[in-house]
């Protein structure tokens, strides 16, 4: 009976929860009436007005709709793009390199965007150019090839800028770029991020590292020749005195991909990937908003992101092989379940070297299962609406969650499920605090 209570509870829980999450997502079409009050300094999003079930033919409803539409179109029309002459920054698009330059650069945006060359000219990627033009921060011009002077270079409209995108994929990428920029994230094309190559390579001997990579591979192959079991006579010959023994016998059958779990393993995996030319670029590297960001030494990104158009015949959702390749190429900060590893890679962390508090193994296991290991973000474009999905490497094969039974001890009967003490996972854990806090991925703090 009690089990039914739980299960029923569980089912009933769906509806309300889904509803909750929808309230937040159904904001596709909102109440624009108070948008006029918004200014650059206070971006307070107004609450959604109550909506009706369907048109009922009343004038009152017509009026409400009329007002809603008017508020929306007024807000759009009133907010002209551009700047006053005093603040005007001119940027020129160069079709030959699909970039734009600012001859006399100034402004806050330069902390996170653009690249200044020897002559003091700031070069913007096309995404940065369009984004800044759309905000009104820069005025976009077209650099005509035949003349030096900017006098006769034509002003570009927003429409011109969009028409200059090279591919539909590029427009999708821009949409994702702008979406994150508006929220304050620092977004740089993964191809352009300065990579601290040398710091990435583990300090171990190069060849040794590769051999170790191979040995993990052979170990993996080994697991699919299981210990002979499942023989009809097995239970006549063997006696199991604990449930754990039965589980140990059962769990050897099906092989699994184990996630690298120490900083060392991660670096090795990354290195082998690079060594074999199996490194796959993401679309964007993303950093959380921060004032201390330095373009030249950005440190590892907080997230790496791949843009995917769900409606185009050119794109398909990644297969497992593709997802795995991506995991191996991830250079973003490790968000996985190993707090120790995380600490070691946070730039400027003072905690490095400090003895890390050991948690209850049950809680640690729970955390590994819930948090997973390496991850990246998939930005899914649906004709203008963007959803983000986080794909995280998980590993259930390395965890044993059975509870111990023993006829004699009664203390475990009422407690939470106890993980096995002796399992492989825990022994790895014990190694973690001993893993030297490596300096890899730490940006040179100057």
């Amino acid at each position: 009976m009690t089990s039914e209570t739980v299960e029923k509870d569980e089912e009933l829980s769906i509806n309300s929860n889904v509803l909750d999450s929808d309230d937040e997502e159904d904001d596709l079409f909102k109440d624009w009436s108070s948008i006029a009050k918004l200014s650059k300094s206070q971006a307070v999003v107004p609450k959604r007005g109550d909506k009706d079930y369907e048109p009922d033919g009343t004038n009152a409803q017509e009026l409400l709709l009329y007002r809603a539409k008017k508020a929306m179109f007024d807000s759009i029309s009133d907010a002209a793009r551009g700047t006053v002459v005093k603040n005007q920054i001119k940027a020129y698009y160069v079709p030959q390199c699909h970039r734009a330059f600012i001859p006399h650069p100034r402004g806050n945006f330069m902390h996170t965007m653009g690249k200044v060359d020897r002559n003091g000219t700031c070069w913007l990627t096309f995404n940065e150019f369009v984004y800044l033009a759309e905000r009104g921060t820069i005025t976009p011009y077209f650099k005509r090839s035949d003349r030096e002077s900017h006098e006769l270079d034509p002003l570009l409209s927003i429409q011109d800028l969009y028409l200059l995108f090279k591919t539909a994929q590029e427009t999708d990428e821009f949409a994702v770029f702008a979406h994150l920029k508006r929220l304050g994230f620092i977004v740089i094309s993964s191809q352009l991020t300065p990579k601290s190559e040398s710091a990435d390579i583990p300090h171990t001997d190069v060849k040794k590292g590769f051999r170790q990579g191979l040995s993990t591979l052979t170990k993996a192959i080994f697991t699919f020749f299981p210990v002979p079991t499942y023989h009809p006579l097995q239970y006549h010959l063997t006696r199991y005195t604990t449930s754990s023994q039965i589980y140990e016998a059962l769990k050897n059958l099906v092989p699994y991909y184990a996630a690298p779990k120490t900083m060392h393993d991660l670096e090795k995996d990354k290195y082998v990937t690079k060594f074999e030319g199996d490194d796959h670029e993401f679309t964007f590297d993303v950093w959380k908003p921060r004032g201390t960001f330095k373009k030249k030494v950005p440190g590892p990104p907080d997230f790496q992101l791949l843009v995917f158009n769900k409606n185009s015949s050119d794109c398909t959702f990644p297969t497992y092989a593709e997802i795995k390749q991506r995991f191996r190429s991830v250079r973003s900060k490790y968000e996985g379940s190993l707090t120790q590893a995380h600490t070691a890679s946070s730039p400027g962390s003072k905690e490095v070297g400090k003895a890390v508090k050991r948690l209850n193994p049950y809680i640690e296991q729970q955390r590994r299962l819930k948090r997973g290991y390496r991850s990246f973000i998939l930005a899914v474009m649906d004709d203008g609406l963007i959803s983000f999905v986080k794909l995280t490497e998980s590993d259930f094969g390395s965890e044993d969650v059975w509870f111990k039974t023993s006829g004699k001890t009664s203390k475990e009967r009422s407690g939470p499920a106890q993980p096995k003490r002796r399992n492989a996972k825990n022994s790895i854990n014990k190694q973690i605090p001993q893993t030297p806090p490596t300096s890899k991925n730490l940006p040179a703090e100057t």
Partner: protein
Amino acid sequence: MNEHTKIAISLVKGNSNSGTPLVFDIDDIKKLRNWGTAGILTGTLPSAAQQNGFLSVPLRLMVEEALWLVDSGMAFFFTGPETVTAAAETLTAREMEHALERQEKSFAEQRLFKKQQHAEKMASLGIPFDEEKASFTLLESSLFVETPSVSELVSATIDQNSARQEELWIKLYNGLRNTGDYFVYKALKQNHYFLSPGARFGGRFIAYPGDPLRYHSHMTVQPALDYNRDPLDLLQVVSGGRLGTGVKKLWVVAGVKMDDEKEAKEDVSFFSIEWAGFG
């Protein structure tokens, strides 16, 4: 419908298979809305540039939407970075002068307006207004340079030639992941629904009984099925029906009838599914 009342849909990179249909003119966006097409605003709203809830032009259309608008004679496509580059490079000195004149005219209007405003303010404070004394540099530096939404460069070169339009249409149609969705879209439009992209709700489209600004959505429409061949995915029915119960939307499946060459016929059969409330 009159040719020049047609709406211009800019097809970003319409020469490859996929293209992104965008509309830049606010009046066109209003027209579309009154015709039952909402689209998705995707551009930064300069007055509130740090949020994603309220956005501005361009308006992005679903590919099915763009195909349907052109098919029904309400819109036409135009495309190409070449167009912009060519137009910009071949701009004559005379045309540039025109552009600068327009800019100057806008400045003149602004100056006049600002002066008037200043005068009114002074008058209300009881201070006599002296035009000579008004700071010229302050005035000049506060003039607004607008980045327009709609292109003046390419408007002259728009090609509404029907063969070209058809070529673009077919390419865009072939770039759809599921071409049956176009027929589902069309059938729903014939039933006067407003439609928006539905991936966030686990569907191809979300259907509203009227303008989404005022009405809740009624249905999550699934990607088109082949009417005669595709079996209903019952596991999806179970999860879809459950989702629908929570969000008060029906889970709608649509079968597109195909002819012998597996080409879609304009005949769509809909079924609406919801949890029966027991079991």
